[in-house]
């Protein structure tokens, strides 16, 4: 007596014309053939568990972070096939970064683009401060020690110690993922009122290259962001100052930034740099209220760059939000981060 159809199986009509012959096919043990009278009816689902690895990888590539985590939890083959998937969705309008709040204890709060809240325990962030965030990688600083970190996969890559153990008034950026051979890190910080210091680290190098810059008038104000594009690091202050550092020439150029105005003849003649500035994302969107931060809490939020396939990239500036009342009793740190999952091998290091 043939077996009983499983709960998930479907009855379908016989697919051939001669009314009965079943095409030969590999079946998993969960699919059974049911015989009713003289007709053999296929009760069948497809062998999804036999899907070739390259197709599984293609599917995994379409998944966003949470779904990718589920995918990895299905079975060994699926987990293996997902090893190269990083939750990067190409051409996505949903590339808005998430907000990660940390710094009080290991319990961190994460807000996705719909402001849904998750709670994560991330011990590696204890005592550390994020000084740059780009496409899912964070650059962390803790008393001079530095490392790249992906909080969702717990991937960590240590880099040579920074020449200073305290970093205030800074802006930092890295040119590409720390797993790429051409990754360059640049950290600018204010040494004195008129002196800015730039430190640059090349992939594979054992130490940082220091370049001091004495900023002459117009002075660069409070640093707000750093970005990288086509061989040049840009350091933006929170008003309209820009310092461009060319990696190849090791030279600086100062600019005053003007927002391009289509109607103005003046701006049309100026060199154009394709960025959009978002300087008050946290404050301007009333995030304090939306994430339920009390008035006694102050927050330092590290910005990021939102890449757009067409048109200008959008720079989310770093913000320092004061407590809304006199007595500040809690200080949190935050960072805008793209939800990505990076698998790295155990011997992945900064050396090439």
């Amino acid at each position, binding site marked *: 007596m043939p077996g009983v159809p499983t709960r998930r199986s479907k009855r379908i009509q016989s697919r051939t014309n001669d009314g009965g012959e079943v095409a030969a096919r590999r079946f998993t043990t969960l699919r059974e053939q049911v015989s009713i009278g003289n007709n053999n009816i296929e009760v*069948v689902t497809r062998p999804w*568990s036999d899907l070739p690895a390259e197709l599984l990888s293609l*599917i995994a590539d379409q998944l966003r972070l949470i779904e990718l985590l589920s995918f*990895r939890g299905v079975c060994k083959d699926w987990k293996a096939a997902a090893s190269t998937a990083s939750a990067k969705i190409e051409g996505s309008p949903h590339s808005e970064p998430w907000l990660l709040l940390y710094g009080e204890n290991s319990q961190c709060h994460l807000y996705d683009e719909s402001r849904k809240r998750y709670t994560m325990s991330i011990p590696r962030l204890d005592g550390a401060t994020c000084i740059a965030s780009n496409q899912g990688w964070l650059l962390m600083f803790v008393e001079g020690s530095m490392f790249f970190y992906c909080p969702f996969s717990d991937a960590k890559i240590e880099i040579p110690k920074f020449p200073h153990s305290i970093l205030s008034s800074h802006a930092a950026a890295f040119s590409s993922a720390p797993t790429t051979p051409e990754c360059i890190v640049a950290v600018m910080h204010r040494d004195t009122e008129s002196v800015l210091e730039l430190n640059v680290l090349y992939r594979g190098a054992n130490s940082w290259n220091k370049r001091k810059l004495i900023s002459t008038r117009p002075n660069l104000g409070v640093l707000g962001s750093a970005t990288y594009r086509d061989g040049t690091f840009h350091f933006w202050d929170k008003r309209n100052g820009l310092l461009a550092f060319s990696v190849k020439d090791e030279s600086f150029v100062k600019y005053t930034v003007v927002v391009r105005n289509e109607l103005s003849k003046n701006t049309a003649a100026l060199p154009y740099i394709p960025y959009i500035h978002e300087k008050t994302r946290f404050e301007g969107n009333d995030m304090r209220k939306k994430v339920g931060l009390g008035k006694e809490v102050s927050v330092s939020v590290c910005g990021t760059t939102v890449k757009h396939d067409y048109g200008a990239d959008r720079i989310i500036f770093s913000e320092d939000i004061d407590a809304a009342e006199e007595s500040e009793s809690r200080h949190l740190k935050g960072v805008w981060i793209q939800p990505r999952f990076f698998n790295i091998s155990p011997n992945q290091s900064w050396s090439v």
Partner: protein
Amino acid sequence: MSSSSSPMQSTGRKLKLKSKDDETFEVEEAVAVKSQIFKYMVEDGVSNGPIPLPNVNGKTLARVLQWCQKHADPTITEDELNKYDAGFIDVDQAVLYDLLMAANYLNIEELLKLACMRVADMIKGKSPDEIRRTFNIKNDFTPEEEEEVRKENAWALGP
């Protein structure tokens, strides 16, 4: 039994294809070359006999060719194409699987991506257990591996 795709405006050469269950199809070259396999065959000069496709059954091949036809049509707008694709891929699991395997075998990049995205959609919002039940996949993690995965995912998927 054989089917023909409806003729395109230009009269190009036709390719003859034979599915694993012996259905034969005639299709314009311009349509067939959506498949990289056929593209190379056409470029290399293909014989007159029908091309056997032992990995694709007739029903699936008919669907695939219909898709190729639509995507080779120069008069169709992108909006219409997107709408068509959405309807085309809204099929049950068995058909989806067959389309996925056929698009892979015939190397039709856009159709493959469409099918993969549909599978991804079916995965959305599901826990690993729900995914296993949907696709009839056996959980072959050891208890230790299972525990490790659960811990890694707890923040996102719950304990």
